[in-house]
């Protein structure tokens, strides 16, 4: 059922470093899981949660994201009332705006926020891969009569280096957030904020207006933390402990894809048992053809592929061609790549349209996969 909540997704995350994969596209548009882009998960979660209006901020490199989203029809978001809004940066006439954070992004879409009718707003990053029901988060927000609800998840055994990428929360027994540690030097609590929060749309606008006129940049430090520390403001936590993985590096990107080879992860992530599917752009690819010489094991394969060689422990996107005698292991091969006869590919990430000529060998490390950029011919 529809609910009274607006969705806002940031298509970029300054903390993610994806190297070559985001040199030509926004983080949200990075292909993942055989036929998806990163944005599909968060956008589908919102659609499945009954959110009818979603705005996606697209500060840079948004051509491929716009191409992917189109009118939003594949998410049933091409609507007269509400629907999908792609929010490119506005030409404000001011140049050289220095380091921008979430607050500037939200300030930049103030008219979108202002014109929306929804009582509540959900603000999220795009790069956490999970299948979450935001309607339940809203329910808990209303039940707690909270001013803010932060979605968080259990974490354990963080190294100091990892801890510095987390925002850790202290939560009391009635789900109130009592303290917040932004990028601490070591693990101080076991609850990590997932960069998704709900609040009232109008109060968010006021806070953004105040913060942006006072030289503030970061939502976490400059809006959420003061709220947590203010006794007058009720900040609650909503714990989500399903499969979730943040894509913020080549390694985590690789891991998410390989995780999909696990049946439990697939069943949960693609909402197969609860009928909360992940939508994506329809390409009308033909079914995948396995030739007489095909040998495939433990692999996740999209439509439109033609497989004549061997594929093990890998993810193949739409329209990949694996030639005779070629062997692909532990690799992520994106759309329309071609691995010709007798090639050997191990621990590699191929961006879209890579061509590997006959007999070539490319081997990366299992801890550090080799990335081959878009449409490169090897």
């Amino acid at each position, binding site marked *: 059922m529809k609910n009274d909540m607006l969705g806002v997704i940031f298509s970029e995350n300054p903390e993610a470093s994806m190297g070559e994969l985001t040199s030509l596209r926004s983080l949200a548009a990075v292909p993942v899981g*055989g036929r998806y882009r990163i944005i599909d998960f968060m956008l589908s979660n919102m659609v499945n949660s009954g959110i009818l209006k979603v705005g996606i901020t697209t500060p840079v490199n948004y051509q491929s994201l716009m191409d992917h989203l189109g009118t939003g029809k594949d998410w049933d978001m091409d609507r007269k009332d509400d629907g999908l809004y792609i929010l490119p940066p506005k030409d404000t006439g001011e140049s050289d705006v220095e380091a921008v954070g979430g607050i500037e992004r939200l300030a930049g879409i103030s008219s979108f926020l202002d014109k929306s009718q929804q009582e509540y707003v959900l603000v999220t990053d795009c790069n956490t891969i999970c299948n979450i029901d935001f309607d339940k988060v809203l329910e808990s927000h209303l039940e707690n009569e909270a001013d803010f609800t932060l979605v968080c998840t259990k974490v354990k055994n963080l190294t100091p280096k990892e801890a510095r990428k987390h925002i850790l929360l202290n939560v009391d027994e009635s789900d109130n957030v009592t303290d917040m540690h932004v990028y601490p030097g070591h693990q101080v609590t076991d609850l990590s904020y997932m960069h998704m929060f709900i609040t009232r749309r109008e109060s968010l606008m006021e806070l953004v207006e105040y913060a942006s006129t006072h030289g503030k940049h970061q939502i976490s430090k400059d809006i959420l933390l003061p709220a947590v520390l203010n006794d007058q403001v009720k900040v609650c936590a909503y714990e989500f402990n399903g499969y979730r993985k943040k894509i913020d590096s080549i390694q985590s990107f690789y891991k998410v894809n390989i995780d999909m080879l696990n049946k439990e992860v697939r069943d949960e992530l693609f909402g197969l048992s609860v009928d909360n599917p992940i939508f994506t752009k329809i390409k009308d690819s033909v079914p995948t*053809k396995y030739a007489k010489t*095909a040998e495939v*094991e433990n692999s996740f394969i*999209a439509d439109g592929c*033609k497989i004549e060689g061997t594929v093990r422990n890998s*993810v193949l996107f739409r329209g990949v061609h694996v030639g005779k005698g070629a062997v692909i292991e532990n690799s992520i091969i994106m759309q329309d790549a071609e691995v010709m006869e007798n090639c050997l590919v191990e621990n590699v990430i191929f961006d879209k349209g890579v061509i590997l000529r006959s007999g070539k060998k490319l081997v990366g490390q299992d801890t550090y996969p080799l990335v081959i950029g878009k449409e490169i011919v090897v």
Partner: protein
Amino acid sequence: MRSKECVAMILAGGQGSRLGILTQNVAKPAVPFGGKYRIIDFPLSNCAHSGIDTVGVLTQYQPLELNTYIANGQPWDLDRTNGGVFVLPPYTSAEKGEWYKGTANAIYQNIGFMEQFNPKYVVILSGDHIYKMDYNKMLTAHKKANADATIAVIEVPWDEAPRFGIMNTDENMQIVEFEEKPENPKSNLASMGVYCFSWDVLKKYLMADEADPESENDFGKNIIPAMLGDGLKLMAHRFDGYWKDVGTIQSLWEANMELLDDKPGCDLDDDTWKIFSRNPIKPPQYVGATGSLKNSYTTEGCEIYGRVEHSILFEGVTICEGATVKDSIVLPGAVVNSGASVNKAIIGSDAVIGDGAEIGSTADDANSDYNNTKICSADITLIGPGIKIGNEKKVAVLSMVTDDIC
């Protein structure tokens, strides 16, 4: 309403009774084909690629699933502000209400629909053939020849010609005679059931045909012979590509299997002429460590832990560990459990084959209660949609299973 030069009408009301249990609850054009398609995707995609943006789909028999499938026509780019796709069931009027009595009557009853677009030409198609054809080429030929009607024909092997409607033509491809299923054919040019008419001419003949109580209201039997009898200019338009009528279980099986040929006659992997379909919202297919696929066609949402050879698996099919599937077509959502074997069979949507069961068995103790050689031939076994076959049950070859076997 803006005028349209050409409107297409797809005859999709047939029961397709020779497909047995597969068409018990759905019309033939909605029968799944080729891993992720339905038969009607072919004429609809052909229309989209031929630049025909106004299409009427005439439904009558079990139309619900077909209606839902076509819906607003979005998968075929037929969700238009001007034109688009329209599902046209029979209806009642002030004077009378009746079912579609025949192909010509179905079009007759929708004269009002077509007139809204004030067309110059009307293309009549049937919803049960597998082929990729540019109707615009036929229309261009029709205009160039200044014909009253143009009929698409395909060369068939001479020994099969008696099964078809045969067009006898002169050296300019003008049709001089039409013979329905002739014993001794004079030509091997068979009608494909694809017609292009000048609308004013067709309208006149449809009205006359309706007024004739003796008529069977059929294009092949009545309209075409009447036009020929009056000396109208009917042209044959030769089509060279792949064309297959999938009206029987055997031809449906064959047409599917031909997709697995090294050089398939109907190449679906063609970016210039994609066959559009309503895509399932399913994750990619997963092949497990014990899974193996050879010479097969598989699509999204499948989970494969068993052995699959020379087969076509539709969306969301599960093949469990130790199961073997050979020379078969497994329709959406079906499950083949551990150790089961499926041999030269068509497994209906959402059917469940139990552990160790054997489909298409030649063993003496196999269950032959469902033997049905009227529907099944060429050693093909057919399991109906949603049917459950119990563990270790053997289903004899040439069965059409219509009830659960426990």
